[in-house]
């Protein structure tokens, strides 16, 4: 009797765990079998994947999710990341700087976030006041960002040299452990960051946005707009303001991504980040978002983002040819979403 109710409870919990999580675990299993678990699942590679997620699609995917949840799509996230990253680099490479390095860092981050906010607001402003499809607006804004980024770059890549505090954002870690590997006869000791700053930023953002979506009126409004726009409007929700905020937040998230990216590369080129918006959308959809809006959650999106990072890393670990990787990633994305869709239909 007790066992039965216990099993039922387990089943109930399992039912709430998104299918994609199991699929992700399956993918990880396959990769570790193909590469050899000792090599694939070693600490440094695990941290490598999570790091790649944090500085790549991880944070940006939240923006994609928000836009999709409110029935839009945000194609400008990559462009905004590029612009913000470029601004950060440009300001930090200001020489001779009229202010101290600490202040300069604060200024650079502030300006980068502000740029993200401005571009996000530009999306939001046009979007919430007209009925132009978000696809078009964000495509346009993306191009504007790209242009600004190119012009600021002035035809070179901008390097940031010797700014330790800034590099800490993208490459630093609060805690490190030593990992020793044998290389032939040589013993190589590497320190592996197990609390990387960028990952912590990403996790903090997910916690924050999860709260935002589940626990605040704003979150409910976003879901309501996605579920039934008219109903939301007639219920007295300020849909204009809500959609504006969605894109504003998207811009900020993209700016954070841009800052981390520049910090990791210690340089910014206008091409950085372009095209990332598609990864973001893929992550959100793999996480269960419907393009018609109102579905999925931040944590599900996180699973989607991780899936993409795991796929990228895994295919490169098993030494698949780059062109084959493209095919494989396309296939796996389709299969994962198809399985999820089939389960939801039942």
């Amino acid at each position, binding site marked *: 009797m007790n066992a039965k109710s216990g099993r039922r409870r387990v089943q109930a919990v399992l039912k709430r765990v998104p299918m994609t999580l199991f699929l992700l675990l399956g993918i990880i299993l396959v990769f570790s079998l193909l590469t050899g678990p000792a*090599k694939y699942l*070693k600490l*440094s*590679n695990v941290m*490598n994947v999570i*790091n*790649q997620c944090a*500085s*790549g699609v991880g944070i940006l995917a939240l923006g994609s999710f928000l836009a999709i949840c409110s029935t839009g799509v945000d194609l400008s996230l990559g462009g905004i990341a590029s612009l913000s990253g470029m601004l950060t680099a440009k300001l930090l490479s200001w020489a001779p700087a009229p202010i101290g390095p600490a202040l300069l860092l604060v200024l650079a981050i502030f300006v980068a976030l502000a740029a993200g906010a401005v571009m996000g607001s530009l999306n939001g402003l046009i979007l919430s006041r007209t009925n132009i499809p978000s696809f078009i607006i964000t495509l346009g804004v993306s191009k504007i960002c790209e242009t600004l980024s*190119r012009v600021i*770059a002035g*035809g*070179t*890549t*901008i*390097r940031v040299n010797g700014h330790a505090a800034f*590099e800490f954002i993208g*490459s630093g870690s609060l805690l490190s452990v030593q990992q020793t*590997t044998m*290389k032939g006869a*040589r013993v*190589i000791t*590497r320190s592996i960051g197990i609390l990387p700053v960028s990952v912590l930023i990403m996790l903090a953002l997910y916690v924050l946005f999860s709260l935002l979506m589940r626990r605040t009126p704003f979150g409910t409004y976003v879901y309501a707009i996605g579920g039934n726009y008219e109903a939301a409007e007639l219920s007295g929700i300020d849909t204009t303001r809500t959609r504006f905020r969605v894109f504003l937040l998207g811009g900020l998230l993209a700016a954070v991504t841009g800052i981390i*990216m520049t910090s*990791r*590369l*210690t*340089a*910014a*080129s*206008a*091409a*950085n*980040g*372009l*095209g990332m918006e598609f990864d973001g959308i893929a992550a959100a959809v793999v996480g269960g978002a419907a393009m018609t809006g109102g579905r999925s959650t931040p944590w599900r999106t996180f699973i989607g983002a991780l899936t993409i990072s795991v796929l*990228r*890393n895994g295919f*490169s*670990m098993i*030494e698949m*040819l*780059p*062109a084959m*990787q*493209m095919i494989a990633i396309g296939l796996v994305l389709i299969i994962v979403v198809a399985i999820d869709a089939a389960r939801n239909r039942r």
Partner: protein
Amino acid sequence: AEEYEVTLILKDNTSAGWRYLASAAIAMGEEIGVKVTENSPLETQDADQQYNAVLDAIEKEVDAICIAPVDSAGIVPALTKAYEAGIPVFTTNTRAFNEGDEVISFVGVGNEQGGYDIAKYMFAQFPEDETINLIIIDGNRTGQTTLDRIAGIERAIAEDGRVNLLDSQEAKFSRAQAQETMENFLVKYDDIDLVIALNDEMAIGSYNAIVAAGRVEEMLISGFDGTPEGLQAVLDGQISASLNQSLPGQGSEVIKAVKTYLDGGEVEEWIVVGGEVCTPENAGELLTKLIK
């Protein structure tokens, strides 16, 4: 002999030049017992993806990394990580802006110098006292290669004094885009003397547009890279010159250098490959060498 594992990271997975380099590298690897695995960014020339590729290679514990960085500055932190993990790095085609000993050796020509050389050569084809109305078909202005080649061309322009730069446009190193861009230029300008395209593909695309407009007699075209198609076009008189990067040469030389280094030998810091201007005179010879 012992097999070494090497990861080769080029700028993209799409354009012809990089394929020549990769094929040659892999072929050379097979010959001398080095297992070469390519892991270039998929489509876009993406510094972040190259960074990730380097990190993945470190996790794979390969014996060496060969890379043609998209972003000479942006790749340095990743190379430092490889250095810390004890993996030697070789650059080819494009240098990295490293300041320490992260990079063992660079294999290739200087893009800036190449741009200068070919521009100089083309300018010399015109009579002393004539102004030269120049069009540049750009590659991709967010990438290092384009920036370096343009810098070289600009140096040549400044020295020459006869050149009037009419216009320049990005055509993304693509034959198709170059053809469309050139079509527009042909409508706009009726006094073009010289077209410098930043690679052979774009040179051929421009040539196609010029033929379609029936204006072949009016202007000269130059390419860059010395790919088989490019050399053939030089031989056929479609384009006047290209710059021999010897991409296959870069591929095989860099793998040779890796092998030498891993075997404990000495390698030069800069291994010069190619760099000569391909003209109708030497194109045939270069082509036979390539196809072999």
